[in-house]
Each structure stands twice: as structure tokens, then as C-alpha cells.
């Protein structure tokens, strides 16, 4: 950036309202919409709202509900893994018949089938409902119109439908938890034959049917949302907001939406074929198979075909989860270190590169499932290339905060925590991407540690960073910083305490998804480590309770936001009034005069996007 604007021509601080009045443009929005049907009564304001900010809040709170459920499930199976000898009889009021109580000793044991159901549901819920809908649904809805300078989404109605399809998916999944035969128990990837044969296990019957219905609704939700996000970003950018002036979260949400749009339909085609196998006796995914000594009438299909279809979604899905977190963290780190993001264009290009690569690497999830080793070679190469754009992003985050005037707010801490987690988890990804090493590592706790750190915890950290950062925008109040810092340190240390030891378990060959390890002498010396992991998990969950209390308490009792731009951020969402009205800006829509990252420029701490370029000033966004 050779251009240093002359200090004398640097723009003076301006009053936002005056700037919008002077440079904004009038779309006559409020003449059309004043007192309109959108926000007129309780139902249209809070339930069937078509306002993107309300839909974002709905997504967030529904996502938190599911996060609690998914987290509690993980605690139950962690208790089983850490303390297989202890009695779980106290869980009987909650889990009912899934805890069998020995009549003599009074010791309660978790039913093995339910252990698998818990693992399956934990994965499904966290991956789809929390980290897809809860993360990208929340922040795409909240930030896209606000940051690009639009009144609302392109189609508020489809946006509302998107939430309600998600809600419906949640309702169906929730029902499946209470089935007599239990929810689906064949792993969140739902591989056939466990998913294709209703008689294969207790969860494969009704549980799997509801699982399929639920996720089909979910895909409809993702598609409706994704089409909306894409068209909004393309068509509804305000004047002056060219693509190189978009804040990075918007780029991330854009690519995320494209990934969802292209990959979820393929999952649906796999689901439909699976439904046919389950109901009409076709053999798409089934070959000669015996159950209970009885030969079934299936021939010619291949379970690996399902795995290919699933992972054609599944791998982009990983980036659907992590990209929004990356975008949010880029913005948060830049704002809170008072420095422009380092290498904006490199960030954009690496998002695009990751998006592209995510479509050609899917079979690296299947190295050991019987794919042809010849084709695996290509997948190894493509997979390892992903390390390049990922490394570019990590480098840029670190150089962004390097030498910055960092404010250690909870949001910034979570941003840094994200980078730490992403590095730790990303490095083990390079191990697992090699098919030769994967022969040893696959299906062990090494894999569990890898993906939990890199896309589970890291994505949660991005989400927390976003929640702490934009909470004032959502609810007009701040979250409590002290509780936020307790939350951060507890989660950071706790998450490493949970997942770091798992690497050692994995390298020793401890397989994932096992109910207990009593029968394997070789793993017996890991029982202390398993206990440690379980205790850490309980503590981390307790820390999340702090977050939830903080969240809901702050909605009503938090410190009020008094100025419209409390962080001194440049992006457009901070030019809206403290109480953001329907349509986001009370009068004209602001126009954008510069890129989103003019921090520490020309002697100013930050220069909002709506402030015109000074004479001779060079804009990075061109």
C-alpha cells in the first residue's frame, strides 16, 4: 500500500446521519413500507417475521437450543467412556429404559444401542443444526443485508420459509429422540447397510426414517437460504459497494452459500436412493447381505456409492461450517486490533480456492472404506493442496493482529482462539490427508480429535466471536465481559484438555465409536486419560452454561449500547441507529465510499465506509 494519504486532506470525523443524508440515496422505502404488514403484530414481529434481523435471532436461539441438547448428549456418552463402571442410575428419570438397572446391585448401565444413538445424534445435531444453521444461518441473515447496505434480503418471504423449514427439521429430529426404538444409531454419516435396512439395528427403523425426513427439510432450508444470500449479495449491494469493498464475512457467506447450493442437492439424491432401498426393496446401496443368518434379496448395489454421494456433500459441508467462522474472525480481528486486515485479496482468493478445492477432495474420507487405491492418489494430492490457502489465511490473521493495538475483548479473544484451534486441528489434517498414514489413523480418536478441533471447536469459537461482537447489534445491549472472559479461558483450556489427549489415544490405535474398552487389555492403561477427558468435557459444558446465562441475562439486563458505533468499526451495520428499524436505515441508504478496512490510516483510528475518499487518497477496494 504505497499510497499514504496526506494528513491535511484526511477526512475529519463526520456525523453519520449527515453523511447518509448527504451522500446516501433515497429508495423511497419508507413511503412504501411504513406501517406495512411485516412488523405489525406479535406474530409478524416475533414468530413469522420476515425481517432478516429477527430471523437471525431465531436461527441463533434455535441453534443454541440444539447446541445444549447435542452437548448434553456428548456428556452422557463421555461419562460412559470415562467411567464405564460407575452407576448411571441417576440418569434414569431422563433416559428411562435406556438405562438398565441391575436389580441386585442397583448399578445403572447405559444401553449400548443408546450409546450409538447418542453419538449419532450428537454428530447430526452439531454439524447440521448448530454449525450449519446456527452459524451461517444466523450471521448470513444478520450481516448480509446490514453489511452490503440493503433494506432486507432479496426475498424476505423465502428467508422466513428457510427458518421454518429448519424449525420443522428440528421438530422431526426431536420427535425421533422419543421413539420407542430410539433415534438413528448408525453414525451421523448414515452409511448403508445400517441405514438402508430397517431391521439392521434398533435405530434403523423409525429413527432413520425420521432422520431422513428431518434432513430433507433441512436441505430445503439451506437451499432457500443459500439462494437468497447469493442473490442479495449480487443484486442488493448499495451504491459504491463493489465486490472488493465487501467486508470479508460477506465473501465467506457468499462462498458458503454457493457450496451449500451445489453440494446439498447431491446429498438429497443420495437420500432419495436410500429411501428407495429402505421402502421399495431396490439395491442401489446393497449387495448380497445376510442378517441373522438369513440371506436378503439384494444384489448389485454398492454401499460405497452412498459414501461417495454423502461425502460429495460432506466435504463441502465442512467448509460450509468453517468458512463463515473464518469470515467472522477476519472482521473481528481486524476491528479489535485496529488494523486493516492483512492481504484482503489473498483472503478472498483463498476463500474461493478453498471453496473450489472442497468439491474435488471428498473421497479422502473414504480411503479405508474400499475405494480404489488408484483414485485415492488423486484425492491425496488435491487434499494436501488445501493446506496452501488455509495457510495463507492463518498467516494473514496472525499478521493482522501483529503489531496491532489489540483490545482484549471477549470477541477478539475468541477470534485469536479460533486461529489457535484452526492451526492445531489443521496440522493433524495434513497427517490424515495422506492415505498411507490414514491406514493407521482412520477410525481412531486421532480423527475425532482432528475434526473436533478444526471444525467443531474452531467453528464454535468463530460463532462465539461473532455473538460477542454483534450482540449489541442484535439486542441493543452488551454481553458481560467478565463472564465472557471466563467463558473464553474455560473453553480454550478445556477444549484442548479434551481433544489434545485424544491424539495420543488415536496414535495408540484406540478406535472411535466403541462403547467400552474392557475387552482390550492393550487400551486399559488409557482409562485414566479417558476419565480426564470426561472431566474436562463436563467442565467445558459448565463454562458454556456461563455463556448461556450471560447471553439471556444480557438481552434484558446487559449494559445498554448508547452510541451507534461502539467498536469504532468501519462497516455499514454500525451506521444504523441503535434500535435498528425494519428496513435498517430510517431514511436514505448510505452509499459506500471506500473499502471496509481503513483502520489506522492517515492518522485516523478508523474511517467508516461511508466517509468519502479525501482528495488524492487511494482506495484499496478498487
Amino acid at each position, binding site marked *: 500500500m504505497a499510497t499514504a494519504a496526506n494528513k491535511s486532506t484526511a477526512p475529519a470525523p463526520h456525523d453519520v446521519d449527515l453523511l447518509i443524508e448527504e451522500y446516501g440515496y433515497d429508495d423511497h422505502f419508507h413511503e412504501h413500507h411504513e406501517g406495512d404488514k411485516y412488523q405489525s403484530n406479535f406474530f409478524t414481529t416475533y414468530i413469522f417475521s420476515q425481517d432478516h434481523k429477527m430471523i437471525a435471532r431465531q436461527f441463533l436461539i434455535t441453534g443454541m437450543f440444539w447446541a445444549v441438547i447435542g452437548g448434553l448428549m456428548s456428556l452422557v456418552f463421555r461419562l460412559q467412556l470415562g467411567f464405564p463402571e460407575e452407576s448411571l442410575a441417576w440418569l434414569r428419570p431422563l433416559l428411562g429404559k435406556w438405562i438398565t438397572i441391575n436389580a441386585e446391585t442397583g448399578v445403572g448401565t447405559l444401553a449400548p444401542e443408546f450409546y450409538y444413538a447418542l453419538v449419532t445424534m450428537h454428530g447430526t445435531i452439531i454439524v447440521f443444526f448448530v454449525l450449519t444453521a446456527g452459524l451461517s444461518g444466523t450471521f448470513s441473515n444478520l450481516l448480509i443485508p446490514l453489511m452490503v447496505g440493503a433494506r432486507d434480503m432479496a426475498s424476505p418471504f423465502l428467508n422466513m420459509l428457510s427458518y421454518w423449514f429448519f424449525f420443522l427439521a428440528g421438530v422431526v429430529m426431536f420427535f425421533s429422540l422419543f421413539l420407542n426404538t430410539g433415534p438413528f444409531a448408525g453414525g451421523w454419516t448414515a452409511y448403508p447397510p445400517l441405514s438402508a435396512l430397517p431391521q439392521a439395528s434398533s435405530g434403523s427403523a423409525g429413527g432413520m426414517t425420521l432422520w431422513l425426513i428431518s434432513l430433507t427439510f433441512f436441505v430445503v432450508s439451506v437451499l432457500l437460504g443459500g439462494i437468497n444470500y447469493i442473490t442479495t449479495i449480487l443484486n442488493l449491494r448499495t451504491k459504491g459497494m463493489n465486490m472488493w469493498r465487501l467486508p470479508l464475512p460477506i465473501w465467506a457467506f457468499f462462498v458458503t452459500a*454457493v457450496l451449500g447450493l*451445489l453440494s446439498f442437492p447431491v446429498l438429497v439424491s443420495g437420500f432419495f436412493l436410500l429411501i428407495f432401498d429402505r421402502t421399495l426393496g431396490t439395491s442401489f446401496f446393497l449387495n448380497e447381505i445376510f442378517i441373522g443368518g438369513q440371506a436378503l434379496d439384494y444384489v448389485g448395489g*454398492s454401499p*460405497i*456409492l452412498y459414501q*461417495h454421494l454423502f461425502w*460429495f456433500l460432506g466435504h463441502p459441508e465442512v467448509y460450509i461450517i468453517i468458512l463463515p467462522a473464518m469470515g467472522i474472525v477476519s472482521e473481528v480481528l481486524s476491528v479489535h486490533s485496529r488494523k486493516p486486515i492483512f492481504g484482503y485479496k489473498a483472503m478472498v482468493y483463498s476463500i474461493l480456492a478453498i471453496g*473450489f478445492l472442497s*468439491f*474435488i477432495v471428498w*473421497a479422502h474420507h473414504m480411503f479405508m472404506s474400499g*475405494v*480404489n487405491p*488408484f*483414485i485415492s492418489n*488423486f*484425492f491425496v494430492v488435491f487434499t494436501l493442496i488445501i493446506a496452501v490457502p488455509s495457510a495463507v489465511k492463518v498467516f494473514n490473521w496472525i499478521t493482522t493482529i501483529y503489531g496491532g493495538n489489540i483490545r482484549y475483548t471477549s470477541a477478539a479473544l475468541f477470534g485469536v482462539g479460533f486461529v489457535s484451534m484452526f492451526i492445531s486441528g489443521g496440522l493433524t489434517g495434513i497427517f490424515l490427508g495422506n492415505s498411507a498414514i490414514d491406514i493407521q489413523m482412520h477410525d481412531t480418536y486421532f480423527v475425532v480429535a482432528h475434526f473436533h478441533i478444526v471444525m467443531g471447536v474452531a467453528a464454535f469459537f468463530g460463532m462465539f466471536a461473532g455473538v460477542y461482537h454483534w450482540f449489541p447489534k442484535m439486542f441493543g445491549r452488551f454481553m458481560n465481559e467478565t463472564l465472557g472472559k471466563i467463558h473464553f479461558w474455560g473453553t480454550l483450556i478445556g477444549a484442548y484438555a479434551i481433544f489434545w489427549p485424544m491424539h495420543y489415544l488415536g496414535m495408540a490405535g484406540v478406535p472411535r465409536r466403541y462403547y467400552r474398552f474392557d475387552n482390550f487389555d492393550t487400551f486399559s492403561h488409557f482409562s485414566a486419560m479417558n476419565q480426564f477427558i470426561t472431566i474436562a468435557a463436563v467442565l467445558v459444558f459448565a463454562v458454556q452454561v456461563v455463556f448461556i446465562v450471560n447471553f439471556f441475562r444480557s438481552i434484558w439486563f446487559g449494559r445498554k449500547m448508547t452510541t451507534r458505533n461502539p467498536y469504532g468499526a468501519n462497516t455499514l451495520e454500525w451506521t444504523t441507529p441503535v434500535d435498528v428499524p425494519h428496513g435498517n436505515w430510517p431514511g436514505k441508504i448510505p452509499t459506500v465510499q471506500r473499502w471496509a478496512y481503513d483502520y489506522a490510516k492517515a492518522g485516523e483510528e478508523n474511517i467508516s465506509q461511508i466517509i468519502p475518499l479525501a482528495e488524492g487518497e487511494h482506495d484499496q477496494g478498487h
Partner: protein
Amino acid sequence: MAQLDYAEAKKVVLKGLLILGVVTMGEVFVALFGNGHIIHGFYLHKIVFYPVMIVLSLYKAYFIVYEFMHMRYEVKGLAMSVLLPTLLLVWAIIAFFQEGNSWHNRRELIKQKDQESVHSQPAPETGMLDDGRTYQIQ
């Protein structure tokens, strides 16, 4: 946008009907000709037959998208934003078909192996003792 006027557009429609009709006729003709329905006992080799069919169909697809769906008259960016993502399918097609082929080969291999008979005489067991001497158990 290079929109056509009404009379021209009507002509394009007729032309489209003609082109699609002729290409489809061509496809069916090649299918029948290649499979020995027209000259009895004459078969086109798959190496010729498949590419001809695929190219003709791709031409039809191109024509439908570019003329009927008006892609030709849209901004180039729109066309690219819709068409380029479909290139992702190329690698998917290669990988999936290669997989299908490998399932076939492996099933054949299993069939072959199933027919192999096993040596009824167990092989002599050999090994090395701690002091370096070898032994053989008959």
C-alpha cells in the same frame, strides 16, 4: 442486452424447433444404425458410437440453454456463474465411473478366486530359533 426484435425472435424459435428436431432424429438414426437395425448385422464400434451420441446431446443441451433459456442474451457473468460450477461435475464423473469400474473388476476377481482350489497339503512351517538356527516342521 442484444435482444432481438419480435419478428426475428419468432424466426429463431422456428429455427430452434428445426435444429432440435433434426439433431434428435440424427441421434435416433445413429442409435438404430449403430445397433444393426438399418443395415442388418452392422454395428458401430462403441469408440465411435458413444462420443457421437454424447456430442450430439451436448449440442442439444447447449442450444436449449443458449437459445431457449436466453443465456446468449444475458450478461456473460451470469452465464459463467451458472455454467462454470457444472464443471465441478467433471471430476465427479471421472471418480464415480472409475469407482464403478473398479467394483466390477473386484467382483470379477472375487469370482475368480472363489473358483481356485486350495492346496490340500499344509505347507511346511519354517522359522528361525533364537540362536539363529532354522527349523522346519513337516
